[in-house]
């Protein structure tokens, strides 16, 4: 029963990892950009939620109403003012600029909030649980987290494949030159993609902050989890990303069950094994 429990906890945790990953996957799909600052932006969102929650006395879930638009606006501005200048044939500029951004965010947070661990408190929901079977109780929060992850993925999937915005995303991704001939402003479309990506980052950050304590240095770890989920699931496939997150979560839960020190390590090892046997991930959709 202990094991079943661990696996189920892992699956639910996978939802959070899918939230880390979805934004990463989205912008890679649209503009082939890998944002090294992604994890730090998640942490930044958690701090923004913390600031809102403490100054306005809001529940972190309500703070989402502010965090999401703030993050989206930040994403749009960042893309238009900085990242668009780095896009081109050479992969170095975007990589190094987002790496620099990661360092700026991390150290900026250290200056503003110090290295002390913080936590968002969402009230009684944090400890609420449902008893599924005699030996099996599940936290309401992990269930909610997973449901939100599924909803976010479904929403992104809809935007990407059913809306005019998604059509523009796909067109720009396929052929930037011809997309412009259709009257699409590439810089604006990329800005919107980053805005959407960071809106998801906002959600991820709030859930991260409610689930565990956080400090300014944990961003790179979140980037890596998200990245692993994307690669395990297969590039460019949003549902695959959810599956990748779940696989990563289960691997970590099983690792932790064996030895608490092995939690994260087990996730890395599963990632490396997938890379060895299925280099394009389990459900690939686009070429790199």
């Amino acid at each position, binding site marked *: 029963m202990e094991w079943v429990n661990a696996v189920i906890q892992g699956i639910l945790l996978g939802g959070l990892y899918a939230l880390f990953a979805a934004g990463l996957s989205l912008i890679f799909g649209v503009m082939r950009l890998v944002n090294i600052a992604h994890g730090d932006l998640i942490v930044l969102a958690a701090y923004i939620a913390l600031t809102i929650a403490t100054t306005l006395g809001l529940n972190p879930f309500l703070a989402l109403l502010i965090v999401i638009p703030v993050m989206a606006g930040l994403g749009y501005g960042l893309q238009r003012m900085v990242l668009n200048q*780095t896009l081109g044939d050479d992969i170095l500029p975007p990589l190094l600029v987002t790496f620099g951004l990661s360092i700026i965010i991390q150290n900026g947070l250290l200056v503003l909030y110090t290295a002390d661990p913080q936590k968002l408190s969402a009230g009684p929901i944090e400890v609420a649980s449902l008893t599924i079977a005699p030996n099996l109780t599940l936290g309401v929060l992990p269930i909610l987290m997973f449901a939100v992850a599924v909803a976010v993925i479904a929403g992104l999937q809809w935007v990407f494949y059913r809306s005019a915005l998604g059509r523009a995303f796909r067109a720009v991704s396929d052929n930037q030159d011809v997309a412009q001939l259709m009257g699409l402003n590439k810089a604006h479309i990329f800005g919107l993609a980053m805005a959407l990506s960071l809106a998801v980052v906002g959600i991820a950050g709030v859930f991260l902050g409610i689930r565990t304590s956080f400090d300014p240095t944990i961003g790179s770890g979140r980037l890596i989890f998200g990245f692993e989920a994307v690669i395990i699931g297969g590039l460019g496939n949003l549902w695959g990303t959810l599956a990748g997150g779940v696989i990563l979560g289960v691997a970590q839960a099983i690792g932790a069950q064996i030895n608490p020190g092995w939690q994260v390590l087990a996730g890395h090892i599963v990632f490396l094994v997938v890379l060895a046997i299925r280099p394009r991930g389990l459900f690939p959709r686009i070429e790199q």
Partner: protein
Amino acid sequence: MIRASEISIVQSSRAAWIAGLVGLLLLLALLAAPYWAGRADMRLLSEIYLYLALACLWNILAGYAGLVSVGQHAYVGLGGYMLFALAMFGGINPLVAIPLAGLIGGVASMLVAVLIFRLSGAYFAIGTWVVAETFRLSFAQVSALGGGSGTSLPAGIVTAIGDGRDGREAIIYWGSLGIAVLVLAAIFLLLRSRQGPALKAIRDNELAARSLGIDIWRSKFIIYVGASTLTAMVGAAIFLQKLRISPDAAFSVNDWTAFVIFIVVIGGIGTLEGPIIGTIVFFLLRETLADLGPSYQLILGLVAIVVMLRAPQGLWGFVRSHYRIELFPLTPRAIDSQSKKDI
């Protein structure tokens, strides 16, 4: 039209000669540092050499072979840990253990390469980071090496390195200098060899390089393993100087990757001179600003972004495009023998 026979290739310029002479004198002066420099200065100098070596190696990977790794700290840490393991459990003299640690790092990098060469571009970059994290977490599980909190090099091993504290520090100093010279020489020879132009071709256009019959995978593999071997040696030397190791220090992305990338970007990626300039700038900044703590790193990040956006060729690239000089004669300059003008 200029026919090939009318072009003479001039590989060395006067600037290069002067640079060579100055370099030789500088090297002699630095070799003698234990006789004129204080203990703190020597430590600083060693640190500069080792950072220079790391920067040159990363530059070869990212600037020449197109292998943008953000996980070379994997090999710094591995080299450091291997030095400790060989000295503590194998009874091997730490100075001998440095090249051995390099070899182990090299073998490890072969296995890693087979895996992560499946990722390309930016995904390769993060893949290397995952590998480094895997190393860090694995070493944190090895209780014989102190687990998560790390370990110190036992006093008996330390005293066996040399006579007295001064003698010991002189030897470690020369070791660091030796490694930096070795790395610089290896890179210089590599770029002058037939691999040099092949690497440039790969960096500039992989598809075209492939059609020229260059085995890209093999070229990249050789560079990756070579650079990782030397990086592991540098790592061993770093932790020999520190005499203490822990997973967080050994596999620090900040210390061994972020700063190194900063150095290369500032100096000028894809040039031999860039990392040297970058190292000087980095240490100048560090010695003046490091007291600021996080703000200092924030400034480094900002500077790196501005350079990347406004002067992507770095300081050296800027100097070179304005004055057309070259300290290391690598790019054959084609000179039209009739007009004596650069083409």
